[in-house]
C-alpha cells in the first residue's frame, strides 16, 4: 500500500520530466531581435535599393579625420599651430608616425567602406536573380563599384600598395597579396569601364531614386583621376571629354556661394557627401564635423553660432601666390582672415595688400584671432546666417564636395598639355572656363605650368589635389615650403602602414 503511494508520486514526477523534455526544440529557434540575412526575401525586389542606401549611409557617415589626413601634406594648406594633434602636424611636415591614431582610423574607415560596398554588391546580386528589371540591379552594382573605387583611390594615394578586396568576408585577407599603386589605379579604371554602361546617364542631382548619388559621370571622373595618377593622359582626356560633352555639368556662377548652401546638389558637383538638418531647428540631423575646419574664435553674424577648432589653415604661400595673381574671388572664398593674419600678411607680403582683405567675411561673420592659426578655411565655412534657425553647430546642413566639374576641366586641360588629344574642348577653353568664373582674363596656348597654377588657385585645400599633383609631376621643391622645417623627398610619398594593421597583417610588416 505504502509502496504504491510512493510509486504514484514517482510516476507523476517522471511524467513531469518527460513533459518538459519536449521543450528541446526551442533551443533551435533563431535569436530574438536579429534580422537573419539569409531569411531575407530576395524575391521582394523592391527592397533591392536598401543595401545601396546602406552603402551611402556608410559613405556619408565618414569620420572627420579621414579627409584631412588624405589632404594635409600640400603647400596649399597647413594643419594649424603646433601643440595639439602634433603627430598630425608632423605628418604635414613629412615626419610620419605609424602609431598615430588618425592613420589607423583612416585606413580602417576607408576599408570599412570597401567591405560595405562589397556586401552591397553581393546583396544586390541575390535580388537580381528574382528581379524583372535586371538593369536596375546592374545599376546598383555599378554604383557600389564606383564608391568602392573612390575608397581604393584614396587608400592607394596615401599608402601606395594596398589590398584590393572584392569580398565582404575578411577571412581571406591573411594570405592576400598587396597590389601596387599602378595596379590599383588600373583596377579602378577597369572597374569604371565596367560600371559606366550600367549607370544613369544623368547629372547626380537629376537622379530620382537616389538624388545626389553616383552616375556615369562620377565614374568617368574617378576614371580620369586614376588615369592621371597613371600618367595615362589620353585616358584622362577621353574620360573628361565624355563628361564635358554631356553638357550636364557647369560651373556655378558664384564661386563663394558654391561652398555654402547653394553648393548642395549643385550642377558643378560630380560627387558629394550629403548632410541635412531636415529644415528643422532641433532634433535629428546628419552632419559632418566641419568644426575641425572652422575658425577658432569669431563674432558670428547670428548670435550663438558655434565656432570651430581652427585646424585647416591655408598657407601664407598660397595667399601670396593668389595676391600675386590679383585674385579676389577665389582667395576670398578659400581663406578666412584674422586680424593677426592680416598683420602678418602686411609684414610678409612684398606687394600691397588690397583693401578688400578683411576679417569680416562677405557674409558678415567677423573672424577673431585664434591661437592656432592666422588663417582659417573658407571652403569648409558655412556663414552663421545660413544656419537653420535654432541650429548652432558649425557648418551644420552643409554638404562636403568631393569632386567638382572645375577639377574635371583642369584635369582635361592638363591631359591635353601633356600631349593627349581631345574630342571635346581644348585646353585653353577648359582653363578659361574656370578663369572666367573667377573673374580672370582668358589665356591662350596654355602651358603645363599655367594649368598647374590654375589648379592650385582653384582647388587649394580640397582633397589633397595639390599635393598629389606635385608628387606626380615630381615637383618636390614646391612641397618644401616649410622653410627648413621639413624636406620632402621621394621616400616620403607614402605614409607608413598603421602599426595596428602591421600587427594584424604580417604582409604589411615586410613592405
Amino acid at each position: 500500500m505504502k509502496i504504491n503511494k510512493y510509486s504514484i508520486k514517482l510516476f507523476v514526477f517522471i511524467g513531469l520530466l518527460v513533459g518538459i523534455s519536449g521543450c528541446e526544440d526551442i533551443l533551435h529557434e533563431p535569436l530574438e531581435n536579429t534580422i537573419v540575412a539569409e531569411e531575407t526575401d530576395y524575391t521582394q525586389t523592391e527592397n533591392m535599393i536598401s543595401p545601396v542606401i546602406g552603402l551611402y549611409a556608410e559613405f556619408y557617415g565618414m569620420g572627420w579625420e579621414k579627409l584631412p589626413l588624405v589632404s594635409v601634406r600640400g603647400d596649399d594648406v597647413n594643419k594649424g599651430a603646433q601643440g595639439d594633434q602634433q603627430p598630425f602636424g608632423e605628418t604635414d611636415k613629412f615626419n610620419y608616425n605609424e602609431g598615430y591614431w588618425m592613420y589607423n582610423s583612416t585606413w580602417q574607415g576607408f576599408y570599412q567602406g570597401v567591405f560595405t560596398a562589397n556586401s552591397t554588391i553581393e546583396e544586390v546580386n541575390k535580388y537580381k536573380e528574382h528581379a524583372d528589371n535586371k538593369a536596375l540591379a546592374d545599376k546598383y552594382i555599378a554604383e557600389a563599384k564606383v564608391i568602392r573605387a573612390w575608397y581604393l583611390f584614396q587608400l592607394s594615394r596615401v599608402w601606395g600598395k594596398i589590398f584590393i578586396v572584392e569580398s565582404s568576408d575578411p577571412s581571406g585577407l591573411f594570405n592576400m597579396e598587396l597590389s601596387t599603386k599602378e595596379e590599383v589605379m588600373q583596377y579602378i579604371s577597369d572597374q569604371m569601364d565596367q560600371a559606366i554602361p550600367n549607370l544613369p546617364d544623368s547629372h547626380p542631382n537629376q537622379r530620382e531614386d537616389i538624388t545626389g548619388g553616383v552616375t556615369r559621370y562620377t565614374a568617368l571622373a574617378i576614371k580620369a583621376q586614376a588615369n592621371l595618377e597613371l600618367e595615362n593622359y589620353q585616358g584622362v582626356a577621353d574620360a573628361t571629354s565624355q563628361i564635358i560633352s554631356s553638357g550636364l555639368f557647369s560651373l556655378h556662377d558664384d564661386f563663394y556661394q558654391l561652398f555654402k548652401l547653394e553648393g548642395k546638389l549643385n550642377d558643378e558637383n560630380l560627387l558629394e557627401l550629403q548632410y541635412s538638418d531636415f529644415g528643422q531647428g532641433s532634433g535629428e540631423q546628419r552632419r559632418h564635423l566641419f568644426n575641425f575646419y572652422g575658425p577658432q574664435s569669431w563674432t558670428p553674424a547670428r548670435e550663438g553660432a558655434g565656432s570651430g577648432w581652427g585646424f585647416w589653415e591655408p598657407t601664407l604661400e598660397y595667399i601670396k601666390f593668389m595676391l600675386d595673381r590679383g585674385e579676389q574671388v577665389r582667395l576670398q572664398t578659400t581663406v578666412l582672415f584674422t586680424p593677426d593674419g592680416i598683420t602678418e600678411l602686411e609684414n610678409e607680403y612684398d606687394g600691397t595688400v588690397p583693401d578688400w582683405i578683411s576679417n569680416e567675411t562677405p557674409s558678415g561673420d567677423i573672424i577673431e584671432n585664434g591661437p592656432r592659426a592666422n588663417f582659417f578655411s573658407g571652403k569648409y565655412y558655412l556663414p552663421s546666417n545660413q544656419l537653420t534657425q535654432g541650429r548652432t553647430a558649425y557648418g551644420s546642413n552643409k554638404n562636403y564636395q568631393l569632386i567638382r566639374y572645375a577639377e574635371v576641366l583642369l584635369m582635361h586641360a592638363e591631359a591635353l598639355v601633356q600631349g593627349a588629344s581631345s574630342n571635346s574642348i581644348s585646353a585653353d577653353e577648359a582653363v578659361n572656363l574656370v578663369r572666367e568664373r573667377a573673374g580672370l582674363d582668358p589665356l591662350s596656348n596654355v602651358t603645363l605650368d599655367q594649368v598647374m597654377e590654375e589648379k592650385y588657385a582653384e582647388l587649394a585645400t580640397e582633397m589633397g589635389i595639390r599635393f598629389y599633383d606635385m608628387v606626380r609631376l615630381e615637383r618636390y621643391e614646391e612641397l618644401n615650403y616649410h622653410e627648413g622645417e621639413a624636406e620632402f623627398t621621394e621616400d616620403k610619398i607614402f605614409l607608413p602602414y598603421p602599426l595596428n594593421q602591421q600587427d594584424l597583417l604580417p604582409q604589411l610588416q615586410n613592405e
Partner: protein
Amino acid sequence: MKSKLYFNSNNKWAWLLAILFGVLICNPLVLSANTAHSGKDGSGNGPLNFQQQQIEVSGTVTDAQSGDPLPGVNIIIQGTTQGTTTNMDGNYTIEAPGDATLVYSFVGYQQQAIQVNGRNEINVALQQAVTELEEVVAIGYGTAKRKDLTSSISTVSSDEIDKTPTADALQSLQGKVSGVEIVSSGAPGTSPTVRVRGIGSYPGRGNESPLYVVDGAFYDNIDFLNTSQIESMSVLKSASAAAIYGVRAANGVIVIETKSGEFDRETQITYDGYYGVQIAQDVVKMANAEQYSRMAMNSGSAADSLYILNAMQRYGRSRKNPNVPAVNTDWYDEILRPGPMQNHSLTISGGTSKSSYSIGSSYFNQKGILDMKNNYNRFNLRTKADYRANDWLTIGGNVIFSDAQRYAPENSAWRRAYHAVPIFPPYDNQIDEAEPLKLGAADILGYRGGQNPLAATEFNENHILTRKILANFYAEVELIPEKLTIKTTYNHSYTSIQGENVGLSYFVTEKMQRENANLNKYTNIFSDKIWDNQLTYDDSFGNHNLKVMLGHSFRDESYQRLAAGGLNFPEEQRTAWYLDKADEINEDAVGDDGSRLYGLSYFGRVQYNFNNKYYLYGTMRADGTQKYQQKWGYFPSFGAGWSISQESFMQNVDFIDFLKIRASWGQLGNDKIQPSAGTATTNVVNTAIDGSLVSGTQRTSTYSVLEWELVEEFDVGLTTTLFDNRLNLDFDYFIRDTKNAAINVQRPLLGGSTLKNQGEIRNSGIELSLNWSDNISDSWSYSLGGNMSTLNNEVLNLFGQPYLNGGSAEFRQRSIPGEPLLAFYGWEVAGVYQNQQEIENDPIAVNNGLVPGDFKYVDQNNDDQIDAEDRVVLGSYFPNFKYGFNFRVNYNNLSLSADFMGKMGNKILNRKRGEIIWTSDLNKDAELANNLWRGEGTSNKYPSASGLRRGWNQKMSDYFVEDGSYFRIRNVQLSYTIKDQNFMGVEMPQTRFYVTAERLLTISDYNGFANEIPDGIDDFMYPTPSVYNIGVNIQF
C-alpha cells in the same frame, strides 16, 4: 553599584548612548555591569564564605542529539582546579560547594557551565560543537558538511558580511576569501567587480562575473539584496564544486542563502541599523595654477602661453607670483562632498513544530560623494516560510521585493575635473549671457572647450528606478521517509528598470551650452524563470554512505527594452518631465530591443563515503542552449577525499584533530558569452539624401559561429584542524584552463572585432587560509586569521596565431602565448635624453630628430632603430599576489576587530595622462607637472613639457603603465554587547553597539585617483571612499 546610576536614568535613549560611550571610555564600568550576573562574581567571593557547605553532586552527561552517554567528559568546579571525569556510562560524582558552578567540557562539544544551587543531581546534555568542519555548506541543489567536501568552497557568514557598510554584500568579501578578487565600486548602487580564481572568460563583454545563486535563482549581481538579509555566502571556487551549475559556473559560483526561520524556535526580533559618512580618500593632487602655468609656458606652444596670458588679463595675477593667474581652482574640491549613508533593517523569525518563517524589511540610503543629484535608496521586503503540510510533504516559499531608486552620477565630471585647467574659476560673473548659472568656461581663455565639470554635475540627472521581485516556491515530497525525496522549485525573478536621462538647457559660451533640453526615457524588463526538479536519495549501508541526486532544469530568460527621447519640455516643472510635454520627439532616440533565451539542463550528483574516511564525489551536467551553434554541452566532474585523521594510525597524533586531503577535476561550460547568431545579420541604417531621411540596410560582413567555451579545472587541497580545534587551515592548488575561449578577434583592415573560439587561457595558483582562535580566559578571547593567494594568468595558445591584439590602437594590449592575457604592450623607457651631446651620440635620436627632454627607449633588438620590433610586455592588470589578514580580540562584551588586505603585481594604465594624444588643452597631475624634465639632470623619468606633446613621447610605454599594488586597512570595528541585563526590572534585549571605519587607509604608489580599476585602464572611475559609521544591533 556604579551601573545603577544609569539604570535609574529616565531617558532610555540617553542610557543607550551612555552605555555605548561608556564602553569606549570607561572599562571598569563595563566590568561591573557585565559581571553582575556572572557566576564568577559569586565564586570570587564564595569560597571564603561558603567553603563549609560542601555537597555531593552526581549525574549523567549525554550527547544532546543522540542521547548516548558520554564517557571522559571533564567536570571542573569553576575558579578552582578541582574536578572529575565521567565514567564509561557517562556518570560522575563530585564534591562541590552548594553555590558553585560546574563546567562540563569535552572535545567536539560545546562547553557548559551550570550552577549547582544546592542540587544533588545534575544531568547534562552537551551539544556538539559547531566547528567550522561541522558547518553545513550550500553546494548547489543540496548541502554538505564542510568536512565531507572534496572540493574548494569558502563560506562567509552574516556577521562578517554585516561588518562592511555597503549596499552590495559582495564588497564585504574583499580580502576575506582567498582566490577571490573584489574590485570595489564607489558609485552608490553599483556592484563591485568580482573575480574568482583569475579570469575564466576573455574580458570586456561583462561576462567575467561569477554566477550568483540566491535561494536557487540565478543572478548576474546581487545589488538588490540588503546585507542584513543574507545568512551566508558560499564561494564555490573549484570547477568540481561549481559543476553542478555547469552552464554558467565558468567564472565561479557564489551561493547566497537568505535568512530563514527554524522549526520549534521562539520568535526573535532583530533590528540592525547604522549611520555613516563616506569621505573620498587619496584624492589625486592635480597641478595648481602655478605648476600648470609653468608647464604651459614650457610647452613650446604659443597658443598655450597665450591662454595663460588671457587668464591673467581676465582674472588678474597672483600676488605670490605675478607670472601666474590669480585663479587657482582645485576642481576635485569643487565636485566632491562627504556622503552620508544609513541602513535599517528589521527581521522577525521563528517557527512552530509545523512551520518556520522569517519576515523582514530593510531600508538603505546612500548619498554619493559626487556633488550632484547622486544617491541611492533601496527599500526591501522579504518573506520566507516553510510548512510541513503532512508527514511526507513540505512546501515553502520565498519572496523578496526590492524597490531601488538611484540617481546615477554623471561620470564625465570625474574626467573633466581631472583634465580641467586650474586657471579659470568655477563661477565667473563676468559672463553676462550665462544662464541659469554663471559658470566659468575655459574657452573664454582660448581653450577648445568649456571644460568646467560643473556643467556636467549641474545640468544632468540620471534617474533609475529598479524594482525587482524574486519569488520562489517549492514542494518537497518524501517518497521513502528519510531516504528518497523529490523537490520541485519554481523561480521567477522579475526586474523592471525605468530610466530617465535628463539634460537641462544652459548657456555659458558657444562651446559650453546645451541649446535644447533633452529627455530620454527607457524601460527595461527582465523576466527570468527557472523550473528545477530534483530527486534525492540518501542512504547508508553499514559503513557505506551514499547520496544521489538527479535533476532537471528549464530556463526562460527574456529582456525587453523600449526607449524614446524628446526635446524641450517644461524644465522648471519636474512633474512635467514627460515626452508628451516635449516640443519634439527625437526619432533617433526611439529604440526597441529585446532577447529571449531558453536553456535546458539535466544533472546528477553522487556523493559516497566509506566510514567517513574515503570520499568520492561526481557530477554530470548536460546543458542545452539557444545561444550557440553547438547546442549541447556535457560537463562532468569528479572528486575524491581521504580523511587521514580518521585512520587508526593517526589516533595517537594529538595535535591533529582533523586532516583531509582532497583532489578534484571538473569541466564547466560558459554561457555568459553573448549569443552568436551563427549567420550574417542585417542592420537598419539611415542617412540624409536630398534633405530627406532615408533608411537602408547593411549586412554584417562578419559573424560568429560559436561552440561552448569550456573551463577545465584541477584542484588538490588539504583541510586540517589542529591544536584542539583552535587552528583551521585550508590549502589549495589549482590549475584552471579555459578552452575554446571566445575572444573578440580584431578584424584586419576594416576594424572592429568578431567573437571566435580562439584560445586557451590558464589561471593557476595556490590559496592558503589560516584561522586561529583561542580563549585565554573567560573574559579574554582572540582570533587571528590570514589568507593569501597567488595567481598566474597565462595565455596557453591562440590556435596557431602568434598573438591577439586587444585594448586600443594607441594603448595596445596584447595576448601572447606564455604571457598574461591582455598584457600591456609597448616600449620600455630607458630614460630621458639629458643633453645635446647624448643626442648626437645616439643614431636613434639623430634619425628621429629628438631633442634633450625626449624619452630614450630601450632598443630591444639593438638595430639602432626604435620600431614595432622593440615592443615588449609591460605588465598585466591581474594581481599575482593577494593577501588579507585580520584579528579580533574579545574582552568580555567588548570586541575589537581589524581587517587588512592588499594586492601586488598588477599594473594600471594611467590612461588619463594619455589623453594628451588627442588634445593638449588639459591639466596634468601634480606629480607629473612638478617632475617634468627641465634641463640636464632634472628628470630621467618624465619628458619635458614640450616633449609631452611630441608623438615620439606618446608611444605606449611603461611611462603610462604604473604599479597598481596597494595595502589597505580595510575595516576596523569596535563593538560592545549588552546581554542579560535588566532595566527597571524589565529584561533588556541583547544589544550590540559598534563603530566601524571602512577603508581607513590605502597605501599605493600609483599616480591616480582610484586604484580599484577593474580592467586596469584608469580613464575615469568613481573613486571608492572611506566610510566611518556607528551602528546598533538589537535582538528581542
